[in-house]
C-alpha cells in the first residue's frame, strides 16, 4: 500500500512540474500498479544459487587516498531471480556490479558463478565468461551508431562465430521479444530512448546469458519507458529463464524486483 502511495505522489510531482502528459501517466501508473500487484518470484527451497558472493571487497588507491568502494559484501542470487541493488550515489553499486559481471577484479573475496570463482580468471577467460554467461545493460545504451538494430543486437555473435542464418533468426526472435520486430533495419539514431534500451537488452540476451546485469537501465528513461523495461525484464525471465541483477537508485524500480538489496558506503544493509 505504501508503495502505491509513493508512486502516486511521484506522479503528482511530475504532473505539477509539467513533465508528463496525463494520458501517458495514467497508463504508466496502471502498468506500474499492475506490475506491483504481481506475485514476487520466490526460488524453491534447496535450489542452488546461480551466484555466490563471499566477503567481496574493492579498494581503490589513488596515490595516498584509499577508497573502500565495496566492503565485505556477501549475498547469493538464485536462478530466475530479479534482484535490485539500490543505494545512494557513491555507495558502491556500480563497483559491485562490475565485479559481478567480470569486468573488474575484486581486491579480495570470491564470486562463484556455477561453482567457478571468476575473481581468479585471466583476462582472456573473463572475456569468454562475459560473452557466454553474462549480459550487460547500461544506463547509456552504447549502441554502435553505424550498425543497424539487427547488427547491433547480433554483435555478441561476432565472437562465437555463429552462422549468419542462425544469427538472423536469433536477432528476429529477440527483436520480437523486446517488441522491435519492425525496427530491425533502423539505425540507433532513428529510435527512441526506450527502444534503444530495449535493443541493448536484446543485445545482452543474444548469447543466452545466465545472468543479465543492468546498471541503471532506466536512468535515462521516463517513467513510462522505465516501467516498460521492468515489464520486459519480467518477460525475459519468464521466456528465457534469465537471472537479472539491476542496479538502480530509483526505489520504484527496485520495488518491482523480487528482492531488494540496499547498499550504503560499500556495505550491504
Amino acid at each position, binding site marked *: 500500500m505504501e508503495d502505491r502511495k509513493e508512486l502516486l505522489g511521484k506522479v503528482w510531482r511530475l504532473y505539477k512540474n509539467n513533465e508528463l502528459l496525463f494520458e501517458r501517466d495514467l497508463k504508466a501508473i496502471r502498468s506500474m500498479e499492475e506490475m506491483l500487484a504481481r506475485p514476487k518470484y520466490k526460488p524453491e527451497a534447496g535450489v542452488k544459487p546461480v551466484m555466490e558472493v563471499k566477503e567481496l571487497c574493492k579498494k581503490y588507491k589513488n596515490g595516498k587516498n584509499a577508497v573502500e568502494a565495496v566492503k565485505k559484501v556477501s549475498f547469493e542470487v538464485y536462478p530466475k531471480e530479479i534482484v535490485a541493488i539500490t543505494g545512494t550515489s557513491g555507495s558502491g553499486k556500480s563497483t559491485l556490479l562490475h565485479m559481478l559481471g567480470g569486468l573488474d577484479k575484486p581486491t579480495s573475496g570470491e564470486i562463484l558463478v556455477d561453482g567457478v570463482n571468476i575473481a581468479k580468471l585471466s*583476462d582472456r577467460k573473463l*572475456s569468454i565468461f562475459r560473452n557466454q554467461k553474462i549480459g*550487460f545493460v547500461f544506463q547509456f545504451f*552504447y549502441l554502435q551508431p553505424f*550498425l543497424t538494430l539487427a547488427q547491433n543486437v547480433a*554483435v555478441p555473435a561476432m*565472437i562465437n562465430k555463429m552462422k549468419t542464418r542462425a544469427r538472423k533468426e536469433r536477432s528476429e526472435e529477440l527483436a520480437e521479444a523486446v517488441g522491435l520486430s519492425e525496427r530491425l533495419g533502423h539505425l540507433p539514431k532513428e529510435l527512441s530512448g526506450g527502444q534503444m534500451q530495449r535493443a541493448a537488452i536484446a543485445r545482452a540476451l543474444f548469447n543466452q546469458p545466465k545472468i543479465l546485469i543492468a546498471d541503471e537501465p532506466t536512468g535515462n528513461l521516463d517513467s513510462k519507458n522505465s516501467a516498460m523495461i521492468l515489464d520486459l525484464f519480467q518477460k525475459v525471465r519468464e521466456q528465457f529463464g534469465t537471472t537479472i541483477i539491476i542496479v538502480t537508485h530509483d526505489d520504484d524500480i527496485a520495488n518491482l524486483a523480487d528482492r531488494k538489496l540496499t547498499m550504503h558506503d560499500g556495505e550491504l544493509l
Partner: protein
Amino acid sequence: MISVKNSLTLALTKLKARKIRNILTVVIASLMFAVLFFAVIVFEGFFAVSLPRFANETLSSKNMTVATMYDAISLFKNGKVSNEQKVVLDRYWNEDILARQRRSKELGLPFDEKAARKETQPYEAYEEDRPNELWPVDSAPAVKRLVKEQVAVEQETREQKIKKYVKNTKAVKVSKGYQLRAQSRQVFLKNQNGEYAFPTNKKSERKGRPDDRVPSVESLLLVPQEAYQAFLFNNNDWKAESKRVPIMLSINKVEYMLGLPKLSQDASPVEKSKRLQDIQKKSKDLIFSACYLNSVAMNQHSDALSYAKMTPVLQKDIKLAYAPIASNNCSVPQIMKDTRDAEDRKMENNSALFEHEFNGLEIQPEAQEVTFQVVGMLPPDRDYSEGLVDSTLRMLAGSADGENYVPMDMFMKLENRLDVQKMYAKPEVNNLENIEEVTDSRVFFFEYKTPELVKDALDLNVCANMHYGVFEGEKIPKEIEVRCKKYKPEFFASSFGSRAADLLSVKETFRQIILIVGAVFAAIATIIMMGTIGRVISDSRRETAVFRAIGFKRFDIIKTYLTYGLILAGVTAAVAFGLALLVANILNTQFAPMLTAKANWIYCVRNFDLKFTLIGLNGELLGMIVLAILVIGLVATGLPLTRNIRRNPIRDMRDE
C-alpha cells in the same frame, strides 16, 4: 577471435564515425602518395619501357666499354720522371745531341748546340716552386726512345694484360678497334661547288665560322661489327672492290651532304620520320672524296701563296717558286720557277734529309685522294642549343659523339687499304702491312652481360687514376681502393653503346630521391592518419568498453581498428594510384608523340613503329609503395591504439 568479415563490418563503422575527417585524411595522404606513384610510373615508362625499346634497336642495348691501354704512360709513375729515368733520359739526350752534331757536320749544315739542346729537352719542372718534380716532354726524342723501348717490352705481355683485364672485369667478349688520326697529313674535302677547300689568299673564304655539319675525316674510329651493325643503311651496297672507304657519319653531316636543310628542333614527328626515311632512300648518293697533303706539299702550297702575294721586285729574289694547288685537283704543287744552283740544291736536300732523320719530316711532297662511301648513319652530333629533353635523351642514347665510325671488317677487306692506312700513319712508320704500325691508338671494345658490370669496369678507372696520379686528390671509395690494391689497371675505359652505367646512376639517384621524399610523405601521412585514427578511437571509447563487456577480447578490438586503418590506407593507396595514373595518362597523350619523334631522331632508329610512352607499371616498385602505405596505416593505427587498448573499460564507461 572475430572473423575478418565481422572486423570489416566494424571497421566500416569507424570510417563512418568521422566521415569528413576520414575523407580529408584520405585526400591529403593520397595527394602525397599520388606524387610518388606518378614519379614511379613516369620514370618507369621513360627509363624502363621506352628507352629500351629504342636502345634495343640500336647500339645502345649493348653493355660495352671502349678502352685504351696504358702503355707508355705507365712508364712515368704519377706522370713524373723518376731519378733513375732522369739519368737514362740525360744519356739519350746527350747521345741525340752528339748524333745531330755529327750528322750536321757530315751534311755541311750549321749547328747551334744550345738551340738544339733546348729544342730536344726531355723534361721540365712542372711548377717553379717544385723544381725537383720533373715531367716528361712527350715530343722529345729522348722520351720517344724510352717509350719505344718500353712499348717493345710491353708488346709481349699485351695479350696477357687483356686476358687479365677481361677476367678482372668479367667481360664476355673483347674486340679490337683503332683510332686513326691523320698525323702527318692535312685533309681537305670538296665544298658544295665540287672544289677542294685548300687554303687561298682570298680573305673572304677564311671569314665566318665553318658549318659544323661539314664532315671531317681527320680521325676515324675503326669499330667492330657489334658496334656499328645497328647504324648501317638498310640498302647498303658497299663493295670492297669499289676502293671506297666505308664510313658512318652523324645524321647532321649526312643531311648536309645531301643538301637537306637543317630541321628545327621542334620539327613535328612526321617531319622527322620523313627526313629519316628520305635519307635512307638517298643513301646511295653519299660518296665523297678527300685530299691528303703531306707537310712537304702543304709547305710548298703556302710558299706558293706567299709568293703570289709578293711584289715582282721581291719575287725576283726567290729562287724556287711553286704554283698553288688548283682547287679541282688533288695533286702536289707544280714548280713555276727554279733558278737554284747545284750548291743550293745540295744544301736544301741535306737539310731536308737532316729533318727527316732527326725530326721525322718527309722529303718528297705527296698528295693523295681517298674516296669514301657513307654506309650508315650515326645519331646526331651534340647541338649546344638543344633543350633539356633532347640533351637528356642524347645523354642516355649514348652515341659516339663527333666520331666517324669505319666498319673494321669492311675496312680490312678494302683493296686499297694500305694506301689509306698510309694517310693515317705516324711519320716514322714505313711498313704498313700491319695496321698496328699505323698508330698505337689501339682501342678495345669490351662487352659485358649487365650494366652493373659496365659500371664496375668504369669504376676501375679510378684505380688507374690513383695509380698514375692523373687526377690527384680525387676521392676514392673504400671498396674500390681495396680492389685497386689487388689490381693494377692497364686500361682506361669509357662507356660505349649503352649508357647503362649512367642509367644506373640516374636510377640510383632517383631511388634515393624517392626514398627521401617517400620518407617525408610517409611521416606526414602517418601523423595525419594517426590524428584521425586516434580521434576515432577515443570517440568510440565507450562502445569499445561495451564491446569488451560483451566479451570481445583485446585482440578483437585491435583487429577491428587495424582493419579500419588498413581500409583507410588501402583507399588512400587506391585513390593515389588512380590519380597518378590519370595524370600520367594525360601527360602521356600530351607528350608521347613529341618524345617518340625526338627519340627516333636521337637514337637514329630505322624502325618507325617504335613508340615512346610515359607509363610504365613496375609491379614490384608500385607494390612496395602500396605495402608501405598499408604499413603506414597499421602504424598510424597501432600507435594511438597502444595508448588506448590498456584503458580500463570500466573507467571508460564511467566518465560521461
